[in-house]
């Protein structure tokens, strides 16, 4: 990549930040050049973010239909999956999955709710509803 080819596409996922990339300057030397972003990166980053958002959105629909608990929605909101939430809380995966049942989640003791809320970085009240 030549220095003048360093993409300055204004990648929205960088939120105005610039990242440093290596490119060949006119004197033939490789240098660190600040880049405003590349469309290719924006495409793949947005793709990953949208996939996570789609999971959250689908979970939200299921919560409103009474088919899953708010825990599953907030797990996806925090960009986690069952494996990661299980590790973050120290609970077995099957227990996490079991807590996706609305009737079981509704009966969880406050200590478990606090554990989930802490792992997800939200308040207990927020964990119990969808926004």
């Amino acid at each position: 990549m030549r220095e003048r080819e360093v993409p300055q596409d204004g990648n929205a996922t960088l939120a105005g930040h610039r990242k440093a990339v290596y490119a060949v300057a006119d004197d033939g030397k490789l240098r660190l050049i600040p880049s405003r972003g590349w469309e290719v990166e924006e495409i793949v980053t947005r793709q990953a973010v949208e996939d996570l958002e789609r999971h959250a959105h689908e979970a939200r629909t299921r919560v409103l239909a009474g088919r899953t608990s708010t825990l599953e929605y907030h797990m996806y909101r925090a960009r986690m999956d069952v494996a990661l939430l299980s590790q973050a809380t120290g609970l077995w995966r099957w227990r996490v999955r079991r807590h996706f049942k609305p009737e079981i989640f509704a009966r969880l003791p406050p200590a478990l709710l606090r554990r989930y809320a802490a792992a997800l970085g939200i308040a207990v009240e927020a964990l119990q509803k969808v926004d």
Partner: protein
Amino acid sequence: MPDFVHAHASHCESGVMSSLLRHQGMPMSEAMAFGLASALAFAYLPFIRLNGLPLIAFRMPPGAIIRGLHRGLGLGMRFETFRSPEAGSARLDQLLDSGKLVGLQTSIFWLPYFPPDLRFHFNAHNLLVYGREGDDYLISDPVGETPVRCAREDLEKARFAKGVFAPRGRLYYATNTPAPADLPRLGRRALARTARIMLRTPLPLIGVRGIGLLARAVERLSVADGGGPARLYIGHIVRMQEETGTGGAGFRFMYASFLQELAAAAAYPALQELAERLVVIGDKWQEFAVASARMIKRRDPLEPPALAALLRGLAAEERNFFEDLRAAQLAWKP
């Protein structure tokens, strides 16, 4: 720490080590730090899953740059992990108060100063803490253009995140002022190591053979039902290659910069020619990224075999390149 200078780098770990070495009185570019630590690699690890997708890495595992430089330069690095966030924060405060520059391994997701779209659960991020004001830490994150601040509570969460590569509060600092580096000796050894990793790792998932195995996995992606999972898979490869602080083209450009710098510093011009060839290989990695992005965006029809062919071409070129790097290394008599 009034004398600390922040520097913008393209990769967190090599950037941290470059800044830390400068602070210890041994200025070294990020590319030189990366190359001397033999950090370039390729690994396709389908049994480690990140959000359900295989780990694809263009460099050695997290920590390899810090440990590689520590061994080569005699930095006397100390590493500590902690059982509780309280203990981790107390120790960090203690080190900062005694005037140490401290490196941390953290998650990216819990760092509030990162752009929201880039906050994924990746636990092997590295940054430097150079001071504290009340409950705010003064942070030099190498991938940022300027220093930032981070509240204690957020930093604790980032340091004690769980999951793959869980940092367990890991911090590190140097205890020695390094002696001037013997660049020809260190460089020669680092080249041998990188050539060996790329060509002769017994496990076929590592090195140029790993690129071939990734090509096979891409070739087998199903395009049925719109090919949603296939698009996510190839997008994931491109993210690992371009977006996760690689300096472009999966660290190939950064390593080329290292070869160029070493050629001049150690007076061995053969490396300059190899640097130019690696830039061409890096450009081809970026062509692979463009072809992938066009398929993801449906500007081109989704054809995994076409992408697999590009990857096989890259595997062949990298094999030639690293064979020649090895030959140049063996012919080098400093």
